[in-house]
């Protein structure tokens, strides 16, 4: 199996892993200005899987696809630094406010236009935690989907995928085309590559070129362009995008307050531990 065309879905997210007291605004929405924008962690796991496939199967290409505001071009550059061959930024005011349904609609159209054999994304983003976008893209494309992937390789023309499930490991196989979402337990993404950083650090979208001083960037260096697609480029129906295309509405947000109400002493015996495990399973604390 050679020459596989892979699209990696990646999202720029606020880094919610080390939040301070001002991480959320009074209205319950994320205060994006105080949280650094990062490459969604599980999308990095997805990128690593794509790069490993490329190492093994000659002629394979990896394209990063992201949707977001202009500054999300940073995600494309990050992907290029780590080894992606190219990237596309889906950006348009009409995309703003899209929920998972509208996002997957736009992404599915962009994927169609790129016509890959394989789409790999992270299981979920750390801002929304829905894990819906990957599966919805697959549905809209009418392709099979495999979630919670940890490792994958080809046997003839079928992709063999190891899935990490709550109660164990499952191995499945699927023909292409296919959408796979990757778990955080998959191998971490490789670091940036020195030569690629030096090559791509001035890669810019048209929008970035218009908004920043290009004197130094341009210099005598041949410009590397990052492709930008808007609504028109993917021939999307605006009604199905942004707020109008998003049936999801956040009604209310409650704070979760964890309190310990009681404490119990257990002995280290198997019997005590088993009864605790059973109790935790019954009240759905675990499992």
């Amino acid at each position, binding site marked *: 199996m050679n020459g596989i065309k892979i699209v990696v879905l990646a999202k720029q997210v606020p880094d919610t892993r080390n939040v301070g007291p001002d991480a959320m605004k009074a209205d319950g929405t994320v205060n994006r200005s105080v949280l650094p924008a990062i490459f969604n962690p599980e999308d990095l796991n997805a990128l690593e899987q794509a790069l490993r496939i490329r190492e093994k199967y000659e002629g394979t290409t990896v394209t990063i696809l992201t949707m977001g505001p202009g500054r999300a071009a940073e995600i494309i550059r990050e992907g290029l630094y780590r080894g992606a061959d190219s990237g596309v930024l889906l950006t348009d005011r009409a995309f703003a406010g899209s929920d998972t349904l509208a996002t997957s609609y736009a992404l599915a159209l962009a994927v169609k236009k790129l016509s890959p054999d394989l789409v790999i994304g992270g299981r979920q983003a750390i801002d929304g935690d829905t894990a819906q976008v990957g599966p919805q893209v697959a549905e809209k494309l009418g392709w099979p989907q495999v979630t919670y992937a940890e490792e994958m390789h080809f046997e003839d023309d079928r992709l063999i995928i190891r899935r990490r499930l709550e109660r164990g490991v499952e191995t499945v196989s699927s023909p292409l085309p296919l959408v796979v979402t990757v778990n955080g337990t998959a191998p971490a993404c490789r670091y940036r590559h020195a030569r690629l950083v030096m090559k791509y650090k001035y890669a810019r979208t048209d929008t970035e070129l218009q908004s920043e001083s290009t004197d*130094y960037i341009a210099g*005598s260096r041949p410009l590397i362009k990052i492709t930008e697609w808007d609504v028109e480029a993917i021939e999307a129906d605006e009604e199905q995008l942004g707020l109008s295309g998003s049936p999801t509405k956040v009604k209310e947000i409650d704070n979760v307050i964890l309190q310990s109400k009681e404490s119990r002493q257990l002995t280290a015996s198997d019997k005590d531990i088993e009864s605790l495990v059973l109790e935790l399973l019954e009240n759905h604390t675990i499992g």
Partner: protein
Amino acid sequence: MANFYTDIKDLRFHLTHPVMEKIVRLKEMDYREKDQFDFAPHDFEDAMDNFDKVLEIIGSICAEVIAPNAEDVDHEGPQVTDGHVMYARGTRENHEALTRAGVIGMAFPRRFNGLNFPMVPYVMAAELVSRADAGFANIWGLQDCGETILEFASEEIKSEFLPRFNEGATAAMDLTEPDAGSDLQAVQLKAHYDEAKGIWLLNGVKRFITNGDADISLVLARSEEGTSDGRGLSLFVFDKADGGFKVRRIENKMGIKGSPTCELVFRNAPAKLVGERRMGLIKYVMSLMNGARLGIGAQSVGIAQAAYEEARKYASERKQFGKTIDQFPAVYEMLTVMRVRLEAMRSLLYETARFVDIYKAWSFISDERQLSKEEREDLKANTRLADIYTPMVKLISSEWCNRIAYDAVQIHGGAGFIKDFPVERLYRDARITSIYEGTSQLQVVAAIRGVTTGGYLAQIREYEKREIRPELDHLRKSLITLTDGFEKSVAGVLSAGSNEMTDFHARRLVEMAANIIMGYLLLLDAQREPDYTASAELFISLAIPENNMRSEYIAGFEEKELGLFKAG
């Protein structure tokens, strides 16, 4: 995200030294490769930005991969099976992460898969890796062997071996033997030219070879039958894939346990001659050793930084008598002196790296065109400075690294003596730095030339003339007094006209010069960045009594007292 490069301000400070502009211009030969390679810099800012970004990659690999692996690597260590070394799991992970980041061979030219980085950022990378795991730092640092291939081997050998480093090939320099340690002239491993096959074959044993089972090895061997001194030795490059070689055993060491120290046996191992016959020890190994000594300087600074961090952290958390122990004078004095010494040795390290950068850049340019008279003089001046600063940096930073590691254990108290804290490993790892690549005693033998020829003094007087803000002038005055004292002591020792007297006081004199030089370097750091003023003040106030003690001892010493020291 943890990052060893960005979490202390000192590396960026030294990276942005004003002399870098000249170094980068010479190294890039006026940015002539910008259209040839898509990653080559177009100007100075572009190049500096590249150094910064690549050191950031290395800094995160160090903090997130190498440092977390260090404890396991120390316990697990490498193993020998079937005559070959298997690294510890963590060692393999570390090497793979750095290989995948494309940073190995970073100082080599781009046409050999390198990044054409100067020594300054390369030495910084070595410091970062050493801070994360000093044992692994050897496996990283042996890419220095490529520098020797680059400088002295034929174009054919360069093209065959250099590009492999970036793809992950490891290296070793096979110099010492059971009866040839400090005295390399005694090397016996035999190289003979097989006329029929048209190749050199190596036969014999090497001992104490760091990373001895490397993919690419530089081997010092006796190519001239019937000779017994250094002039009969040549340098060879050996490819492990060619066979005729095995690892007999690895040593069980006190520290740097992740770095395999091997005993090697060569039996008709085919090898290629590097450069000219008979020049192996006299020219090539000397150059190889200078690079390695600078590397040990970086390793020492890295270990010292790690030990200081551990001590500071522990002292700020450990409470006794109702307060954290860093609030007691006995502890905060130790911590501050550790930090000031660390800053001083780091300034000396990067000053030396800059001299090396300039002379190396000129000598590469001189391969292509004739240098002007001024350029030749600049090459000579920087070569001389690199020659006298390199043993000084090796001596001072390795000795101080040991003192800092010692104090770091002391600050931990009983906790430092058990294996639960990293400081115990750092203390063991530090110990080798003043021993290998030439003991401290041998560094003094190399450095004393800087004292007797006036090389250090001339450079000290040059620092004296640099521009200093008025509020720092009292420090310069103190340093001038110390310099006068140093001159007097040197004159006193030399006036005896006895080599034995000079050798006896050599270390004292070299250390006096080092104190003055580091005092000036910190003063110049403070001139450029006021944050370093306190360090300069503290360092100089410690250097005054230290140097005075040595001056007094020398002034009161008579040659006949030497007899008291001789075994009786």
